[in-house]
Each structure stands twice: as C-alpha cells, then as structure tokens.
C-alpha cells in the first residue's frame, strides 16, 4: 500500500446483505444475511490476491461484489480510479471488459448450447471488438493457444470436454475481452487433483505473460498459498487476517488462521504424524445472526473474558516478530497470543449451534495417546 498508483482495486467498507423476507400478505424484510460485512482490501496491479475461508463465509459474494455482479449494500470499490459500486446499466456494462470472472464449476458456467467459438465471440461482440472477421479469427486462435487448447476445440460444445479442458475454456472466455483483473472463484476445487495442477499452472503462466491481476477465491489453503502473493483470510463475512503468502504460513497471527492451517492434511506421513493440530469445535455460525464482537469468539481457543464478545476487532498491523508492515490481523489479542502470554483452552460447545467436544487424535506411528482439543503439541 506504499504507492497508490500500484493499486488496481481498492475496496472500502464493502457490505453485501441479503434480505430475508417473510410476511402475511406482503413480504417484509425480517432480517439480513450478512454475507459480506465490512471488508477493506486493496489489490495491487499484477499481484495475485488469495481469499480463503470456510464454506459460507462470504468469499464468493465478496468476489462477485467486487465485479458488481452482486450489487453491494454499502461501500466503495474503486477500480483504477473508477468507483464500480456506483456504476449502473450501460456504463457498468462497458466497464466490464476490464474485469472478468472464472467460475468454480466449469460445466455449469458454460452455456451448454453454445460452441466454444460463439462463447468467445460473444464477449468480443459485446464490446465492439468483433469488427473484422479475420482479426476475430486470429484472436480466437490466440486465445486457444494461450489456454493450451487446439483450434479444433472452437467448434465443440462444453459437454464434450473434460473438466480441465472446460476450465480452460472458461479462462479463455475471461481473457477474451482483455481484462486487467480476473476474479477466480474456486477455479480448481471442482477438478481432480491431477487436473488441478494443470489449471493452477496455466493461471500462473497467463499472469506472467499478460500481466494479469488475480483475485483467487478458494477454501483450500494450500492452493491459495501456492499461487497468491497476498492472502486474506475470511471468517463470517469479514477479513480476519491479511498478509503476504509466505509470511501467513510462517507467522499466522489470528487464531482462526492457525486452526485452518493446522487442519489441512499434508500428503506426507512424517509431517502428519508429528504436526500439531488445533481442532476447532463446532461449525460456522449463521451469517444471518452472527456472534457479537469478534465473530470467531464462539469457537476461539484463545478467547478472553474481555473485549472478544463485545467489540469487533479491526484489521491492524501488529508488532510481532516476523510480521511485516503489510501483515494485518483482526484480533484483540494477537500480540499476546503470538508471545505465548495467552494459552489455549478448551472451548465449550456454544449456544449458536452444535459444538463438538474434544477427541483424542491418535498418532498413527506411535502408541496413541489422548489429546484434548486445542492442546498444542
């Protein structure tokens, strides 16, 4: 955030609330799902910003809101100097060629009735870039080779491709109008492991070639870490931590980030047998009725008597060893936790929903021993 010229997207106080309706004769709004609830973030030109979090925490909604595909309830999204959130109709439509989206499910995001060619030409046509037949043709070839598909694929229908190939088509479509920013919503989570890697590599190659800026949404921390320059961790509609990719892994500051990290299984028995695990109790509370104060306090093993349940922590830079100035965290007690001043404790199941009591996690190589949830090894 040193140079504002570097910043492509600047999101301030973004909120997306979905009304919950009900009524006797006429529907009234009786509440809101706070899908995104006060997010600030900025994405620099050319970087990959990764967004992680559990299902339902608002990642996709945030991604869509940034593209104004989901109209924000509040807040501003300044894209290269233009506030997208306030744009409407034709203006917004014309602006769209600068930011594109890649979807999670490659099949459902492609119109099953259109050939790849017409899918790709459509974007060009919408922005008046399809004036010259030969040029269009050349552009299509270019796109196909960029995503590693043969030109013959142009005349095929989406259902005739494999999952990975479909995702390539989806990427080609996003690229067709020459965007600066691509929001990729879980671009690989519907794909097989071996195919995932192909698509991740492709995304990286394209970024190198075309200087794209990415916002990658995923629930898989490993995937996000692999491709992101910076990572934001979301919990229940808000960012709880944001930092450079490597640093987040080395110095996770937010208890939720720690738990998330420790939950990801590593395909290495050695690591699996020895690493510490923080088992969270229970599930994500409902975004229609989020907990007061820190949204995580109901599941937090480091929860304190004060502040946590009354005041919502803001993202802030903390003075912790190894944490750089761009590392922000929304935790009242981040410093104390990092310093080991606050110890983990057992979390009782909360009112919000079904909690889980602790379970022993046996170590598979050594005689199993009981472990309390939240006990750090």
């Amino acid at each position, binding site marked *: 955030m040193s140079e504002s010229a570097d910043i492509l997207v600047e999101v301030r106080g973004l909120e997306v609330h979905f009304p919950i309706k009900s009524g006797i004769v006429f529907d009234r709004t009786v509440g809101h799902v706070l899908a995104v609830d006060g997010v600030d973030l900025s994405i620099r030109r050319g970087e990959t910003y990764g967004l992680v979090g559990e299902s339902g925490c608002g990642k996709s909604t945030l991604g869509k809101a940034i593209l104004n595909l989901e109209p924000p309830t509040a807040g501003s999204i300044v894209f290269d100097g233009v506030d997208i959130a306030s744009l409407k109709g034709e203006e917004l439509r014309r602006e769209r060629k600068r930011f*594109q989206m890649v979807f999670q499910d490659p099949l459902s995001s492609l119109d099953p009735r259109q050939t790849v060619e017409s899918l790709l030409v459509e974007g060009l046509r*919408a922005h008046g870039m399809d004036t010259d037949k030969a040029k269009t043709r050349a552009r299509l070839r270019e796109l196909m080779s960029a995503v590693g598909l043969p030109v013959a694929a142009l005349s095929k229908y989406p259902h005739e491709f494999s999952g990975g190939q479909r995702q390539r088509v989806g990427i080609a479509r996003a690229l067709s109008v020459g965007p600066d920013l691509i929001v990729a919503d879980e671009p690989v989570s519907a794909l097989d492991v071996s195919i995932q890697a192909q698509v991740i590599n492709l995304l990286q190659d394209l970024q190198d070639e075309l200087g794209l800026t990415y916002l990658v949404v995923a629930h898989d921390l490993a995937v996000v870490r692999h491709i992101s320059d910076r990572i934001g961790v979301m919990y229940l509609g808000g960012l709880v931590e944001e930092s450079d990719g490597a640093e987040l892994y080395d110095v996770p500051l937010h208890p939720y980030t720690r738990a998330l990290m420790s939950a990801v299984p590593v395909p290495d028995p050695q690591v699996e047998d020895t690493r510490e695990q923080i088992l969270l109790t229970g599930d994500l509370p409902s975004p229609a009725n989020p907990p007061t104060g820190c949204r995580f306090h109901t599941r937090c093993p480091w929860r304190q008597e004060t502040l946590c349940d009354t005041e919502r922590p803001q993202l802030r830079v903390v003075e912790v060893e190894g944490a750089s100035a761009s590392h922000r965290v929304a935790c009242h007690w981040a410093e104390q936790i990092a310093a080991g001043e606050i110890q983990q404790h057992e979390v009782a199941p909360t009112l919000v929903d079904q909690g889980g009591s602790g379970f022993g996690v046996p170590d598979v190589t050594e005689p199993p021993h009981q472990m309390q949830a939240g006990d750090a090894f």
Partner: protein
Amino acid sequence: MDQTDEPTRRTSYGQRRKDRIDALAAASIDEEPGISLIRSAWKRLRRNPIFLVGLAITVAFVVLAAIAPWIAPWDVTASPLLDKVRPQTNPVPGPEPGHLLGGDDRGRDLFSRLLVGSRQTLVVGVFATLFGLLGGLTLGTIAGALGGWVDSLVMRIVDVLLSVPSLLLAFTVASLAREPSQWTLIIAIAIVQVPIFARLLRGAMLAQRSSDHVLAARSLGVRPWAIVFRHMLPNAMGPVIVQATLSLAVAIIDAAALSFLGLGNPDQRQPEWGQMLGLAQRYISEAPHLAFYPAGCIIVVALGFTLMGESLREALDPKSRR
C-alpha cells in the same frame, strides 16, 4: 530417489509435462465438429424402444394427416351408403366391399372419414399447442426476465388460471364464443396451456437467471436482452419443449372432449375425431364401433405423443442419465 527434492530436475520434468499436456489436450479433441446436446440426447433416444414406438406413431400420424385426402378411398362429404341407412333397422351401415369399416349414420365412408379426420385433429393439436406455447413463452419470458413485481403479477394470474380445472377452463372459454368453430376450439385449448408453459418457462428462466453461465455472460458485459434471448431462453426451453410434446397429446384429448361436447367445429363436412366420437354417442348401444374407432385413434395418437414426450423428458433430464 524421487525428484521431489531436486528443483532443477523437477522443472525440466514439469516442462516436459507441460508440452505433453498441450499435445494431449490437442490429441483428445478430435477434429470433427462438436455434437450438440440435442444430438447427444438423440443418440441415447435412438436406443430407447419407448421413444421409438412413440416416434413411429407420431410420424405415421403426421404423414397420414398430410396425405389423407389423396389416399382416402372416398370423398368424405359424399354419402355413398346413404341408401342403406335406415334409422331403425340399419342406422349405421356395416362393412362391405369398398367400405372397409362401413359407413356412418349419414352413409359416409367411415374409413375415409377416420383417415381425413387426422388432419383437423393434427391442426387443432398443433395450433393449440403453438398458441399456448407462444402465450406461455411471452408471459414466462417477461416474468422470468424482469422478475420483481411483474413476475409476481404474472404469476398470480397464472395461479388463478391454474386453479381452475383445465377442461373446465377450456369449456368456459369455448362457450364464450358466440359461434363455435375450429378456431374457438384452438384458442380455448391454447389458453389452458398458457399458464402451464408460462409457469414452466418462468421457473426454468429463474433457474437460468441465477446460473453461473448467465452470470458469466453478465460479467462479460453481454447486453441484457442478449442474455435473455441467447442464454436464458434457449436453455430454459428444454422442459418447455418436452411439455409441448406432452401438451400435444393433452390438446388432442381436450379437443376431442370439447368437440364431443359440441363446442368444436360445427361443420361436419370436414371430419374430426372428437366430433365423430360425439356423434357416435347416439349409437353407443347399437353401434359402439362408431365410437370405438375415433376413440381408438385419439388414444393411439395421444399415446404416441406422450411416449415420445416422456422419453424425451427422461433423456433430457440429467438425473436419469445413470
């Protein structure tokens, strides 16, 4: 011994692979042009005996209807057997050489009338479904595309229409006409179909509206009307087309019922199955075959369309592709 801990080897290994991916990606997409969903559904349908039976019936029916006037052995308005008709002793002349099924109560050749009767039946069925489809498409598209209060309004109207039993509604509409004709019949049946199509299409349109590929088109900046007509409508049409096939059967049965009740075309010069059935009612005790033939024809044709529609539905329903 694996390469995992050797970055250099790994890169080259990776590079090798990358090349292969592209080669492979190319290889696995054969050169022939793509097969649309419809074509692949057809491939499945081709092997479905139920569909084939339905198709055979339907095609036979359509072809017969097309060529009926030329192959019918007798002029349907002439009464070659009239001399044999005696109201009490021989109200309906029986079969004889040259008259396969005998005659009707006016001494007209029954077989010829059955053959030619397929035409009006087809016309009524097709046009009623077509008009119903058009009406339903318009309403459904408006409701599904615009949403909001327009949607609510349209759907309330549709609800009211749907809450009246269909035949009763058709009967009501048909009886409103001062002079029954083929067209009042068609309109009456079409109106009954409108809410069905509208609701179906609107549901499918709403599903499309929130689908990823429509979102994708929106994010591409495709103009709203183009999204409606290029993406939403074509994809929402699947269930509608299936319903249209089924509706053809229903339209034929309803048309028969209405002309049976005297609301159809009053002009007997051109035969129609429902009307023939209605006329046969009087002879039900003495000459039930007069009712039997047109009823049989209606049943078979309705069955043809239904079998086709049902198997189409199954073929297009992703759930049934096990």
